[in-house]
């Protein structure tokens, strides 16, 4: 019997350890002699440091050491640039990356000033109170428009302004020509803010320098262990083989855990080497609100030109992007906004310019969606406004502009975050829209809305479309090995934060090697188990690592069949690989178990033939030529209370196409979680800063993550348009659920409250009952 695992809703291999409390997370690492670290963080957003006096802290019993930037000596260096600016003509980019401990200036609340090492975390935090910091306060840059005034103080003194970057990309020639013959031009200002990822596990680092072995081991919640290993080895003056980065189970990431180097990642290993002791730092929730990166706001001045039939002629967009105090992640977030705005639509002419702005706020790096939401919001809102202006149905105006199925690959010409032209590999968009409209009951909704309205209920509907560039390079690799016990060991360089890699990757292997999915043991994110790789980001794990694992499995399969054909003295075609054994076709009793074959591949005696390798093992790599573009449509019906603006989601539909599906159960989970975060972004989560750069709601009691009462049941369906860019035909799915939820809320709320008639336009996210109240008051 042969089971096909690929494509099946296989239950997860990793669940048992997690359900019984046996999975190792970073804070579970306990080492003899371990010391604990607490950081003194700036309580103000912008100030010059005059002095830091740590003498009293050093004298406190239980405190082992206290360090400031001066103690780091030559080790003190600004962090690396993760992603250099893309090759776009005329690009301006000022690289200013974060530092391990603030030296001359603090540039955001939460920036570390000093670090205390003590026998316990309690004692370390006690000693923070003993440190005396003398600061000269400076004006604070919070507003991204005011930041560009000539009179504004600069976040970085050596720059002439607060411009972090300036990028213009165009498509289809002169926008003015495209717009000249327009029937209608819609022009608005949009504000979109994204929040913090806030995984339930915060960040953490344990570093253990073992002087006798001259080995550094680091347990880290990072999403990019290989880069962390390479960077730290260089900084610490060690060989890369002397540094091992282990990413154990990680309690959610969603983007910010890929940022590097966080100050704590740099400082902890240095302390461990200096003291010859293991050291641990676990971020507390308050720290997480400042010390882990955010995604925040953009302001778009966008205009769309259309013909009389509602077909887009061109779009011009000029936007500001809040980069925060430093820009270590380059331009990934605003480039994603710029590119993803185009969505699944034919846009003949596009002229998009953005300015990324330094502010005295925490650093902005990608968080699930990574700027895509901002762009999608602008496009979807422009279409809604145009539909209203032209008296076209909102779903219909979308349909009229969809890229036709025969137009793929579809090249949007501009440069994407992976430095490749923004080209959609494959897609078939109209059936996805049809399925979503059908599932939400679009045709019948107008009557339903009217009936409900007659009985005093306010129902509204929304439909939003999006594409998602996924599965970008550079590459990932994997080693697949059949062990003597017949089980298969797989190692890959990416880390995992709950995406089910221990199962979906095992499914790929199990089919190729004829073993049960539970007989495949996956190791992710341990640089001593697999040396090479990039990381888990941009919805790329399944696509890139998945295809590397597939290639390595195929190579091992060929090795095993070759060895068995030699043993049986028969052709490979006469062999069957299934149920953990290789047998001869038609003679099932004539077989050899894979484990025995693995032992035979590593003999004690006899010559191994030249050109062969021992063992049933292979290491393979996969690098896609470009990203695979997934797409989808979300639709929602809400009921609004017209007085309190309380919102209840009555029905939520997702139709999605991410190519070939490895595990539909895991895929559904990714979509559910993405939508929940999208709902949080749209209606609950707002980082409220005052004009001094202080975050006013830095607790989970005040910054509201959606609870089970806020997230509705979702109805999911899929179409399958395989990617031609990889052998498995898969596209990424990690971020899709989160991307179109903002415009969906805006549209559905407008529909429910009849805002078009009231001439109230929802041009911003996040919304909330109180914000809706304010907007209605302004109008009234």
């Amino acid at each position, binding site marked *: 019997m042969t089971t096909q695992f690929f494509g099946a809703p296989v239950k997860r291999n990793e669940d048992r350890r997690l359900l019984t409390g046996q999975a190792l997370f970073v*804070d579970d690492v306990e080492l003899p002699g371990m010391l604990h670290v607490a950081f003194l963080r700036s309580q103000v957003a912008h100030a010059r440091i005059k002095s830091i006096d740590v003498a009293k802290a050093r004298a406190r019993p239980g405190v082992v050491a206290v360090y400031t930037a001066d103690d780091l000596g030559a080790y003190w260096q600004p962090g690396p640039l993760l992603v250099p600016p893309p090759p776009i003509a005329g690009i301006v980019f000022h690289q200013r990356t974060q530092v391990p401990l603030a030296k001359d200036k603090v540039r955001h609340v939460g920036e570390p000033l000093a670090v205390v090492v003590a026998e316990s975390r309690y004692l370390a935090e006690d000693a923070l109170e003993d440190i005396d910091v003398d600061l000269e306060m400076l004006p604070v840059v919070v507003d991204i428009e005011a930041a560009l005034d000539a009179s504004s103080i600069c976040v970085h003194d050596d720059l002439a302004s607060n411009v972090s970057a300036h990028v213009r990309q165009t498509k289809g020639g002169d926008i003015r020509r495209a717009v000249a013959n327009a029937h209608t031009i819609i022009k608005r200002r949009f504000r979109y803010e994204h929040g913090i990822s806030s995984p339930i596990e915060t960040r953490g680092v344990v570093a253990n320098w073992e002087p006798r072995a001259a080995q550094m081991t680091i347990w880290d919640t990072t999403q990019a262990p290989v880069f962390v290993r390479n960077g730290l080895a260089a900084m610490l003056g060690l060989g890369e083989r002397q540094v091992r980065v282990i990413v154990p189970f990680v309690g959610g990431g969603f983007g910010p855990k890929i940022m590097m180097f966080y100050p704590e990642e740099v400082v902890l290993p240095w302390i461990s080497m200096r003291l010859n002791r293991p050291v641990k730092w676990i971020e507390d929730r308050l720290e997480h609100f400042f010390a882990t990166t955010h995604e925040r706001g953009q302001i778009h001045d966008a205009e769309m030109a259309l013909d009389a039939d509602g077909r887009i002629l061109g779009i011009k967009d000029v936007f500001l992007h809040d980069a925060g105090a430093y820009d270590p992640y380059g331009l990934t977030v605003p480039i994603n906004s710029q590119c993803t705005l185009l969505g699944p639509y034919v846009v003949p002419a596009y002229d998009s310019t953005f300015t990324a702005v330094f502010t005295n706020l925490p650093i902005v790096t990608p968080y699930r969606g990574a700027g895509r939401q901002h762009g999608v919001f602008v496009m979807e809102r422009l279409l809604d406004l145009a539909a209203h202006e032209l008296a076209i149905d909102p779903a219909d105006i979308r349909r009229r502009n969809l890229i036709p199925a025969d137009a793929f690959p579809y090249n949007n010409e501009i440069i994407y975050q992976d430095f490749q032209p923004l080209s959609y590999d494959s897609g078939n968009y109209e059936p996805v829209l049809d399925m979503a409209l059908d599932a939400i009951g679009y045709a019948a909704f107008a009557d339903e809305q009217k009936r409900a309205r007659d009985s005093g209920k306010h129902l509204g509907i929304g439909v939003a479309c999006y594409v998602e560039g996924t599965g970008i390079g550079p590459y990932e690799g994997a080693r697949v090995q059949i062990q003597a016990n017949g089980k298969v060991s797989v190692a890959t360089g990416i880390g995992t934060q709950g995406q089910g890699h221990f199962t979906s990757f095992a499914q790929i292997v199990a089919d190729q090697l004829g073993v049960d999915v539970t007989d495949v043991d996956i190791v992710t994110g341990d640089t001593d188990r697999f040396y090479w790789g990039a990381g888990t980001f941009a919805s790329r794990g399944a696509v890139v690592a998945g295809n590397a694992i597939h290639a390595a499995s195929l190579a091992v399969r060929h090795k095993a069949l070759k060895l068995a054909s030699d043993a049986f003295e028969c052709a490979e075609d006469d062999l069957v690989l299934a149920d953990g054994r290789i047998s001869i076709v038609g003679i099932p009793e004539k077989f050899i178990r894979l484990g025995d074959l693995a032992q035979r591949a590593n003999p004690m005696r006899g010559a191994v033939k030249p050109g062969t390798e021992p063992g049933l093992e292979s290491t393979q790599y996969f690098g896609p030529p470009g990203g695979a573009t997934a797409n989808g449509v979300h639709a929602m019906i809400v009921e609004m209370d017209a007085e309190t603006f309380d919102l209840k989601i009555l029905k939520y539909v997702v139709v999605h196409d991410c190519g070939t599906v490895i595990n539909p159960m895991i895929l559904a989970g990714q979509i559910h979680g993405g939508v929940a975060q999208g709902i949080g972004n749209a209606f609950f989560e707002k980082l409220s800063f005052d004009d001094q750069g202080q975050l006013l709601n830095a607790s*989970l009691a005040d910054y509201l993550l959606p609870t089970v009462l806020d997230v509705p049941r979702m109805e999911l369906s899929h179409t399958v348009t395989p990617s031609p860019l990889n052998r498995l035909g898969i596209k990424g799915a990690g971020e899709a659920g989160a991307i179109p939820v903002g415009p969906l809320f805006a549209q559905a709320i407008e529909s429910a409250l009849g805002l078009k008639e009231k001439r109230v336009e929802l041009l911003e996210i996040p919304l909330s009952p109180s914000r809706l109240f304010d907007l209605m008051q302004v109008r009234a």
Partner: protein
Amino acid sequence: MPPERHDIELRVNGTTYRRSVEARLLLSDFIRHDLLLAGMHVGCEHGVCGACTVLLDGIPVRSCLMFAVQSNAHDITTVEGLATPDGALHPVQQAMHEHHGLQCGYCTPGVLMTMTAYLQDNPSPSEDEVRDALSGNLCRCTGYQNIVDAMMAAAATMREDAP
């Protein structure tokens, strides 16, 4: 001045522990780092996320909002105490596996403890009641839908298993 310490004796998952603890030591830190029962996780340390939920004399409590000294003479159950000694999963654990009710698994121990206690109190809950019972546990990965499904299934199993 040396910190004030207290001798405490408590039972955790059926085992009796005697320890001397600092007055300010959180119960969550005590269970995780002194008793080395690290299955329960700490998410916020201000009583909102529910990840650190354990049972104190059968009642769910947030261990980050209690001091270790307050657990003196009490009986605690953590996630490590849910499966039977021979490794058979509790119906709530099994249902979470069957329904893909966990992704990163970090909030899961808290969800398990909250809901095992709840389903004992209310063996036949409606979906709305399950959602209400779960509303004090934050999960950032799953969107809750599969957790709710798992709890409805677990309730059914527990009803069948009940004598």
